[in-house]
């Protein structure tokens, strides 16, 4: 056998071709008694959460009644679950949180000091001093 093959799994490029949103499930935990859940209860009573769930139809919404501070749990497709405490937040602030976190990918936040992240080979290749014409080469 002249060439042997090494098994490599292809790399996913979400957004090339189809895009599937990374956040697939949101658990909304609220308490029916505590004062910290007031904002969330307001949203639930007004049916706003229902409306948001219809808008974001690609995300599963799970509403759970539980004692304690209210929270939003965002489940991402890289097995990350982010628990966001929304105690004492007002209704519109909670909606903002929902919007913000449902647009994330679940990866850790990081500052990227370059502009473009590429997994492709460079088109031009790397410059090499040995490939310049002999007359222009650097001499020691």
């Amino acid at each position, binding site marked *: *056998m*002249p*060439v*042997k*093959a*090494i*098994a*490599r*799994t*292809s*790399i*996913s*490029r*979400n957004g*090339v*071709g*189809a895009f*599937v*949103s*990374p956040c*697939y*499930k949101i658990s909304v935990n609220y308490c029916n008694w505590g004062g910290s859940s007031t904002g969330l209860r307001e949203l639930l009573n007004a049916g706003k*959460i*229902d409306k948001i*769930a*219809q808008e974001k*139809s*690609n*995300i*599963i*919404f*799970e*509403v*759970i*009644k*539980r*004692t304690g501070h209210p929270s939003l749990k965002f*489940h991402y*497709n*890289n*097995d990350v679950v982010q628990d966001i405490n929304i105690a004492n937040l007002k209704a519109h602030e909670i909606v903002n949180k929902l919007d913000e976190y449902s647009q994330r990918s679940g990866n850790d936040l990081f500052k990227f000091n370059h502009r473009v992240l590429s*997994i*492709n*080979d460079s088109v031009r290749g790397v410059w*090499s001093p*040995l*490939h310049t014409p002999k007359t222009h080469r650097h001499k*020691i």
Partner: protein
Amino acid sequence: MLRRSMIVKDLARVSRLRGLMSIPQPRHYSQPSKAVNQQINLQHYENLNQSTSSFQAKYDNIQDYGSYKHNVFTHRLPESTASQSPPLVALHSRLNLSSQYSLSTLSQALNLNKFDDGLANNYGLNILGKNLLSYYVSEYLLVKYPRLPMPIHNVAVDSLMGSKALYQIGKIWGIEVDKSSKLDKYLSQESEFLKYGKLRYLTEERLDNNEAESGVYELSSEEITNLKSNNNTASSSSFISDEVEAYGSAVRAIIGGLYTHQGEEITKQFIQDHILSRKLLLENMFEFSQPTRELVRLCDKLNFQDPIDIRLIAETGRLSSHAIYVVGVFCGVEKLGEGVGSSMNEAKTRAVVNALMSYYLYSPIDNEGNEVKVPSDKDYKYLDGIVGLGDVAI
């Protein structure tokens, strides 16, 4: 139709919550994922019936394909029930499927259980999806990379539609595994609709028998045999768990379902968007044992008149502290490849490998400089370099 993508439940009354454990169960039927297998053994025809004897459809006449029927299944999920399942509705929406694709088919695609109160499973959908996938993936690779050696081609097909790749895709689609038993569901007052949107491959006894430590994973008998057979071969690292296999099956079945509802053209589009858009690592799949001999043999096959020769193009100087050599492989006046190395030998090997890679990874373009079309495209045209000649033996 009422479609719900919300679950409302009251956890305060849950008396007991079990830790989630993943204990797999033996598969009912093998779902081979090996992409192209040109080597057959003659035993194949003897074994034909053996593998499927436990799970076989009954028929009136062998050639009356409409009459085939699995007796273990009695019904499909009613559409009204399926539309009550939040995960199912969400998955449908996540994949941007049209309303023609019924939710009950999507739910069936996620069901691998053979005995689930007579509910039809994804056996047929999976086979349908596998055939569609393997055609469109191989077509793409065969036309885009016609000179890929067969072993590399097979691995490349596997890297796009093997179980591991499909597992990743299933994860990205947000498919969850149904890991709670009937008792758990009863105790936690989980809605009965919830499970129809989840991947169901664990049997009830496996689910009940989840007393192991969390994080401790018990292999099913299928997996143990899989592991043993893999140990004998070189690729012992290619162990595939039941979960990975189940995700793969579900993804294939969803693609099969797309064909049944929306036809082939849309399915092709779906495969292109979700599977062929992934990044292939072809350059990293090659392992050469005797590259120079292979190149000589290849040039022989291509009827090159001149002998191969290897020449030094440039060097930093032998006495420099880190000498660098640039070496080229030539056939007459044509340069086939070039390599850089810190010794002549290294540079030579790199040059030869470079020449071989630039041959194998050749990808044709048409006369206007566009990428070639695949045979299933509308205005496909035959081009000269599109048929591979086969690799060489040493």
